[in-house]
């Protein structure tokens, strides 16, 4: 006999009890730091004069800060160019793998996924070497054939070079999500479509893509967050191209530099919150558009 019948009040207590561990950790590890950061962002600490309460002044300053606005603008551009490219590639790979027409599908799947397993620190260092203008292999190959190669670490190429690293790292990850979603589509649908005379392209367009929409939305959301929080790659390439990647190259890098080189922890907290707000807004807009399309 289950407890439900004999002791209805016991279940009332059991529910919250089951949730309690999660809730405690959620409060402790998620909401508390967030609340503390919000609290910090309302103060200002000066080397001379100490800490004072300044209300929303940090936010007002941040909205007028050209370095922050440039940083956000740059990651927005990065998002607009890099993410569609990456998701398109991930989608193509997922469809190709799912088609069952590839030989060595498992090896290819693993090969595309492996870069995701490489720590981004290692990836950035490795690509930094490949990009090297003097004795990076690409530049050397160019010199060997007397072809001039662009300076990948120069001012005009840097963002593209970063986009390339991030794409290399995350195509596999997104591909796995899309591939898993494809696997859940009932095979009978394909058979029925084939009976109706649909070819592989038609099946991909009419069955697979619509079924992939929730998964695509998910990958897009991850990408919004990833792009706007771009940090590891520029931080590491900064070592070899300090004159191109400045302290405000991306918004996250700017917040980091404010906190750890400028000692402006309070201002950094405000900047981080604003960046979080930007991410929430962009995510919401994309979700809204995606949902409206689906309902339309």
């Amino acid at each position, binding site marked *: 006999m289950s407890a439900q019948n004999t002791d209805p009040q016991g279940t009332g207590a059991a529910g919250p009890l089951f949730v309690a561990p999660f809730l405690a950790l959620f409060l402790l590890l998620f909401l508390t730091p967030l609340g503390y950061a919000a609290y910090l962002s309302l103060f200002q600490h*000066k*080397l*001379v*004069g100490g800490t004072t309460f300044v209300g929303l002044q940090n936010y007002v300053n941040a909205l007028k800060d050209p370095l922050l606005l440039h940083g956000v603008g740059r990651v927005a551009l990065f998002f607009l160019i890099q993410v569609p490219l990456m998701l398109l590639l991930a989608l193509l790979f997922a469809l190709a793998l799912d088609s069952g027409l590839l030989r060595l599908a498992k090896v290819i799947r693993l090969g595309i996924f492996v870069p995701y397993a490489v720590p981004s620190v290692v990836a950035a260092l490795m690509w930094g*070497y490949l990009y*090297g*203008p*003097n*004795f990076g292999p690409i530049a050397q190959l160019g010199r060997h054939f007397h072809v001039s190669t662009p300076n990948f670490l120069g*001012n005009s190429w840097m963002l593209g070079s970063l986009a390339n690293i991030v794409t290399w790292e995350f195509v596999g990850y997104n591909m796995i999500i899309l591939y898993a979603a494809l696997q859940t589509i009932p095979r009978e649908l394909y058979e029925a479509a084939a009976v109706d005379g649909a070819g592989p392209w038609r099946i991909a367009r009419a069955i697979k893509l619509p079924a992939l929409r929730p998964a695509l939305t998910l990958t897009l959301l991850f990408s919004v967050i990833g792009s706007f929080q771009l940090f590891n790659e520029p931080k590491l390439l900064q*070592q*070899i*191209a*300090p*004159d*191109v990647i*400045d*302290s*405000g190259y991306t918004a996250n890098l700017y917040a980091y*530099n404010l906190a*750890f*080189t*400028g*000692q*402006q922890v309070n201002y950094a907290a405000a900047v981080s919150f604003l960046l979080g707000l930007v991410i929430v807004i962009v995510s919401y807009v994309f979700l809204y558009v995606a949902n409206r399309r689906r309902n339309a």
Partner: protein
Amino acid sequence: MSKSPFGIESPMSRRRFLGVTGAVSLSAALAACSNSSGGSGGSGSAGGAAVSQADIDKAMATPTTRTFWTWVPNIQSEVALFEAKYPAIKVNVVNAGQGTPQYTKLRTALQAGSGAPDLCQIEYQYVPTFTITESLLDLRPHGASALKSKFVDWTWSQVSGPNGEVFAIPQDTGPMGMLYRKDIFDKYGIAVPKTWDDFAAAARKLHAADPNVYLTNFAANQAAAWHGLLWQANAKPYTVTGKSTVAINVDDQISQKLGAYWGALAKEGVVGVEPDFTDSWYAGLNKGTYATWLTAAWGPAFLSGSAASTSGKWRAAPLPQWDASAPASGNWGGSTTAVIKSTKNPIAAAQFAQFLNSDPDSAKLFATKQFFFPATKTLLADQSFVGATPAFYGGQQVNQVFADVSQTVNTSFQWPPFLDQVVTDFTDTVSKALSSKGDVVGSLAQWQSRIVSYAKGQGFTVQGS
């Protein structure tokens, strides 16, 4: 031996904090000393009552363990000398990162109020960054003033506070000089430049003779070298008065002279401007792309380790001069040992800082084991040190060259109390102008205005603006 003050960071080793050792019992007895010496720092010339010899003897005989943050490799050898002399005191050496990462951790610990070490490796240029937050212990009550005559004058003024406080003990130094490729100079008939005018002429001549060779690489990112050259030119970029007044002059006549000079050479393309300590830069030094390296006294040992294939081809000389009749130089690198004010055992910590850097055996070991360039007058006159004739430099007495240079370093150069920000702003403005071969003189004004607005934002009164 790729061991330089600006070299590759060594990985962080175990980081064990103290706090629960036998030190606690002793700390109660010493609290009074700690407060009196720490609290009165800056007032009066004596800096608080001197700690009596009896107290020192007692403290040094009482078993305790002190924590020392440093990135110096193999410093255990020097520490062992101290522990042999004072068997009761154990020093726990912790590598908390080299330079900036360590300072970040130190600041975090200081702000948190726990977890800070008793002693810390601090570079000269960062001493004011930690004295503005009153984090360093004045060592005068512990007998540090008596050491003044042992150290080269400019090193002592670097660790001294405005009221004569002694905030750290110098360990090693980096008076700036020039390393050059004798073979390249000979091949193209270039004399060792005595003045900066000679240097510029040589840069044009060399690059015209061989477009693949540059007289030097003036690393656009290297704020430390820029400051060293400002120092040589007798600039006073930062002046701190009292606790809250600063004057910022990184855009004055001297700075503009420097900016115009290097900006022109970079624009003409006769000197390189790539970032230093990168793979590409190392390759340049090895392949003879750069005929000189404007560096510091730690450079010779560093170079012989990282450009081994060029052994025998290098020589050392003083920096080119603005005024050949009054030779001058600046400093780049080197560091000190400081006692953190929050230490529970200031006596033992202060004695360790002093012993480590002033004991003749310990100081000498730094020169022979870590290849540090000394800060003590004795070592700079020690024949076994300055008389060394390394084959990498064709048997030249390289240390003697830099020992002489050390005598010409100006004693009045000051650092700002917020160096990290100054360096970041330098990278965002002057570095960019140099590397893009743009308007370097104009970028100095940007640098100046960014520092000024930061200083004001931090509550400082900025003189002259």
